[in-house]
């Protein structure tokens, strides 16, 4: 894969993060409501952090270990969030992580994007397993996984020491076989 893939959903274009996205990235990422729900988002979030993220995304694509997609609104390709697949190639699996800018919450964008990413991961990358985690205090992220019929496989109590407190991680997964079984059941409801 030499050109970064482009995925389409009903309302979104998923493609490569661009330098011109940086101001919007900073605007939306510089928000504790986002940072609290992610493992390692710098806070405050500055231009240098966005540059670092872009660099990580480019390197990741070059080495075929990380595929970070920009989520853009269909009409304008306006940046609204990011979703990435982080591969552990030796085990044919990948973790998916995502965040949506707060003005774009509660519209189903993450659910829609995750559906496209799962398809990409299982079909284009031929992965055997895709999993995702959320902090137990952020159940909205879990709903994105459930909406995509992912299966809960772990409840890791006191798994991280975050901002002076122990946080639990909930983990969902789909294996390739489970994904195929979903799709063979006929058209899935949106």
């Amino acid at each position, binding site marked *: 894969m030499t050109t970064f893939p482009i995925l389409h959903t009903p309302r979104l274009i998923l493609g490569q993060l661009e330098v011109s996205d940086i101001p919007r990235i900073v605007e939306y990422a510089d928000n504790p409501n986002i940072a609290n729900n992610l493992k390692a988002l710098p806070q405050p979030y500055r231009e240098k952090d966005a540059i670092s993220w872009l660099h990580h995304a480019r390197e990741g694509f070059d080495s075929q270990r990380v595929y970070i997609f920009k989520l853009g609104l269909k009409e304008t390709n306006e940046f609204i969030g990011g979703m990435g697949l982080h591969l552990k190639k030796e*085990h044919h*699996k990948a973790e998916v992580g995502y965040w949506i800018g707060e003005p774009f919450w509660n519209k189903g964008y993450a659910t829609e994007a995750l559906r496209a990413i799962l398809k990409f991961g299982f079909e284009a990358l031929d992965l055997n*397993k895709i999993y995702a985690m959320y902090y137990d205090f952020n159940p909205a992220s879990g709903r994105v996984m459930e909406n995509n019929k992912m299966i809960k496989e772990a*409840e*890791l109590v*006191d*798994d991280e*020491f975050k901002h002076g407190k122990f946080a639990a991680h909930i983990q969902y997964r789909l294996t390739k076989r489970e994904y195929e079984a979903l799709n063979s059941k006929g058209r899935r409801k949106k």
Partner: protein
Amino acid sequence: MTEFPTLHTPRLILGQLEIGDIPVILKYVDNPKITNNLRNVPHPYYEKDAIFWLNMVRQGFDSQTDYTFRLGLKETNEFIGAMSLLPKKPHHKAEAGYWIGEPFWNKGYASEALSAVLKFGFEALELNKIYAMYYDYNPISGKVMVKNGMVKEAELVNNEFKDGKFVTEIQYRLTKHEYKIFLNKVY
């Protein structure tokens, strides 16, 4: 901690791995019944692998990221296996891992040693959580965890590609709080 700790159980002494253990480590680890149940141990297992491990363990002790105990029989300190505690310090948690040489299986040594290592982890290292994993085809390892009051927290299907197959990992944990409750129930 500058000196490697020594722990005592009714039948075992837990202490630092020694160079003199290398021949017997080779004898017991070069066995697919052991390596199939462990994450990153090659088979066949050669002296260079034992040296690699010993070096990793010594360096890990220096950086407080690896406490690997040799398990020795009380009378003779004869080497029978090993048990490791690997802290992930920022999160006040550690993973425990272990193996026992096949001639010493089914005698309860791993459960006995884990009891001492949990105590060491929660009390001396002040950890908040200790967890351990086993492959689903190796349920005996799970029994060691259950006997020590550990609680199942994950069933990670197809989590690893090992020897050409996808394997499932089961994870058990104990938080400091759960450990205290378990001790109160036992004594």
